[in-house]
Structures are given as C-alpha cells and as structure tokens.
C-alpha cells in the first residue's frame, strides 16, 4: 500500500451511518474471542491513538476509530478495512488504556474474524503455509543450514510437521489456509 493510496482514503467524504449497515450482534461475536471481552468499555478517550507509534506515521491508522466502528457494529466496514492490518501489536495501548480494554487484542480479535470472513493478507497466508510445511515461519534455505554447521552451530532440529499440521487443522485454521486470502 502506498502513502498516496492511504491519503486518498482520508479524503473520502464521511457519510452519515445508515441503520442498514449496523450489525447489532457483531459486538457479541468480538467479545467471544479471548482478548475482545472488554471492547464495549472503550469510552473513546483516544489514549491508544495518541500513544500509538504507527498512528504517528500513518495518515489514516487510528485504533480509536477501529474500536468505535466495531462497537457500533459496522461489521463489513471494519473487517474490510486495510487499517486493521497496520497494528504492530507493540502493546503500548494495552499498557496505557485507562479502561483496561486491551485495544491491540480487540484489533487482533477483529483480524481473526476478518480472516474467517475471507480477508487474509498474502503475507499472513505465506507465514501460515510455511508453518504448515516446515513448522517454522520461514523456509530456511539449505545454504543457511550449511553455514550453521560451518560456524559451529548445532544442527537445527527437525520439527514433526505431521503433528503440527494435525494441530493446525484441529483448530480449524487449516481450512482457512486452503481457502486462501483475498489480498
């Protein structure tokens, strides 16, 4: 995503909310995921956004807005938002929130729902595929393994990928990975 593209999004007019866009059950969906429980306690003070290192360098990323959209039940809007994926999970907002909302965990819960609904960034899909195949988040090239032994480092353990794949499938994520991402 380029800076220009982000900025053009801010420039969009902000129309009034339509009652038809609101999903009243959405908050319950978020609250069911661990970390999302306290979402409705956010009183929009904006501490998360003021202290967010990403927000300082983004024209559009505002965690407070994401929380408000989720509270209001603007399900489609929040799940399809590119902004969702800009949270670095540095947890500064979690440490600073006066309402103990765990903002970054709520955003993570929103991402989890977005993935279930078919929005999965390609970077995330690649990581998932690598873990499924090798147990690790990156496929480590042979050359690296050779260099390890030359440098006197112990060989990298081989993970039991069969058992890892079983577990990933058991949580239901394997299916989502097969379905693939939208971007």
């Amino acid at each position, binding site marked *: *995503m380029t800076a220009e593209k982000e900025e053009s999004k801010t420039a969009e007019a902000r129309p009034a909310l339509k009652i038809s866009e609101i999903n009243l059950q959405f908050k319950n969906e978020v609250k069911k995921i661990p970390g999302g429980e306290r979402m409705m306690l956010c009183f929009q003070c904006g501490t998360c956004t003021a202290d967010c290192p*990403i927000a300082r360098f983004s024209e559009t990323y505002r965690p407070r807005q994401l929380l408000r959209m989720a509270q209001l039940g603007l399900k489609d809007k929040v799940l399809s938002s590119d902004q969702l994926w800009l949270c670095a999970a540095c947890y500064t907002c979690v440490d600073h929130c006066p309402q103990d909302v765990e903002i970054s965990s709520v955003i993570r819960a929103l991402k*989890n729902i977005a993935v279930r609904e078919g929005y999965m960034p390609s970077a995330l899909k690649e990581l998932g595929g690598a873990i499924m195949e090798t*147990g690790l988040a990156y496929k480590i090239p042979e050359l690296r393994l050779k260099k390890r032994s030359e440098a006197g480092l112990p060989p990298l353990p081989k993970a039991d990928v069969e058992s890892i794949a079983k577990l990933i499938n058991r949580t239901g*994520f394997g299916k989502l990975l097969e379905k693939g991402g939208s971007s």
Partner: protein
Amino acid sequence: MPNLKYAMFLGCAIPYRVSSYELSARKIAAKLDIELVEMPDYNCCGLPLDPASHDVMLTLAARNLCQAEKLGLNIIALCPGCAGTLRKVNKLLKEDKHERERVNGFLKEAGLEFKGTIEVKHLMQVLAEDVGLQRIKETVKKPLSNLSVAEHMGCHIVRPQKLIGFDDPEDPEILKSLIEVTGARCLDYMDETECCGAPVAGINDRIPLALTRDKLSHMKAVNAQAVITVCPFCHMMFDTNQMRIERMFNETYGMPVLHYPQLLGLAMGFTPEELALKELRVDASKVVGLI
C-alpha cells in the same frame, strides 16, 4: 544460585537471518556457565499467526511448552516475540482452567498435554534474574568505558506489562543496567521505548522505515556510537534496513547495531570474529576501534 540449565528455543527469524545473534549469545552463555540444551523438536512460537487465529497461536505455543516440559527444563528464548508469546501462554494456561482444558483438547490430537511445570524467560531476563549483575561483572575483562550507546529493547520483552512482568516498559532500568555492566554508557534519547515498526513490514513498507528512521535520528542527536538490540526483528530494522533508510530520506547514519551479546562479549574479551561482528550490515569497526 539457580540451576542455569535451559531448553534453547531458537524460533524462526534467528536461524533464518540473524545467526550473529545466536553465535554471540552462545559465546556469552558458555562464559557464564549457562547450559543450553537443544530442543529436539520445536515449531514457530505461534505469534505470527495470532492475527489469523488466536487458537492456532495458543496451540502452537502450547506445543512448544509441552516439548520443554518433556525435557523437564525451563525455556530460554533469544527472540522477545517468542519469549513473550510462550511466557504469556504459559501463564494463561497455568492460571485459566477453562482455557487450559480447551487448548488441551486441541493438543490431544497430537498426543500432548500441557501440564504447567516449566517457566519461560528471555535471555535478558535470565541474565538479570538468574545469573545476576554481580556474576556478569566478574566476567568483564575489558570494560567498554569509551563507548556511549543507545538501547532499543523493543516491545515484546516488556509488554504487555501485566502479562510479562519484567522491568518497567516506560523506563527499562534493568535492561539498561545490563548494558552499563559492560562499562559502556547507556544514553537516554527521545521516544526511547517506542516500537521499531517491524511487525507491519509485510503489510506496509513506509511506516516501519519512517519509524526506525525517527529513532535513529534521536539516537544520533545524543551522539550514540552504536545501538544495542535484543530482538532479531528490531535488529533487521536498524541494521539490515539502515542503508535503505539512508537512501530513502537522503541522510547518513552509519550507526553500528550490535546484538546485546556482542556488546557483552566484547567486554568479556572475545574477539570481533568470535562474535560474528562481520555479519553486521553496518560496519562496526568504529565500535571495535573504541575498545
């Protein structure tokens, strides 16, 4: 003194791209009589998949905890992302019966069960709590008294505070005292505790580079001669990406970025070669020249 024997959790990023961190960490560990036992089977800590599925994260983390439980050893991790994730999940599953039963339901599929018999610590926490500053001080042969550095300890080693429970995220004194025990001066600088931005690098290029550049400029403003990191991702942002940042913003930093074990290793009297300083992207000979 506690038993200094740990299961070594290497994670993914370190063996993939940052072996200088592992090499130097093993050197200082040996000097401090820390025994590292290789884990015969481990997987990604789970953190990278938390945005995709919280349950996958919990299960992958718990699988690693089970492997260490089988060895009967506490885990030491070099990557704060791994250490933080395993530490948080370990605490959660020990304290929350409902979550433990739910995750054990997943683990059963692979014949595993989380029992809650071990602890997880990052290298820095092991150094501060299990080894102790006094013992580290005794191994310093060449105090780095001509060196002034800036620390960038990153986020996951201390945040979220209530789950990690190590040092003060707003003023990381313990981490700084580990730098100062080498004889180097640890400088204060603006926005010191801020994130490097690495986790969003796969989604957006510009923001992490702008964030790291901001921190580099604040470090330069206080005349830091090097940056000290304890995380493979922070290290990639400051070291691997530094030339890219210089080109992008038309600025010059030339700021060497050392892994903490390289700094301590130099003070212990290891040679730059033994600590893999030549693997750093930004030339660190300036730092070596000051010793």
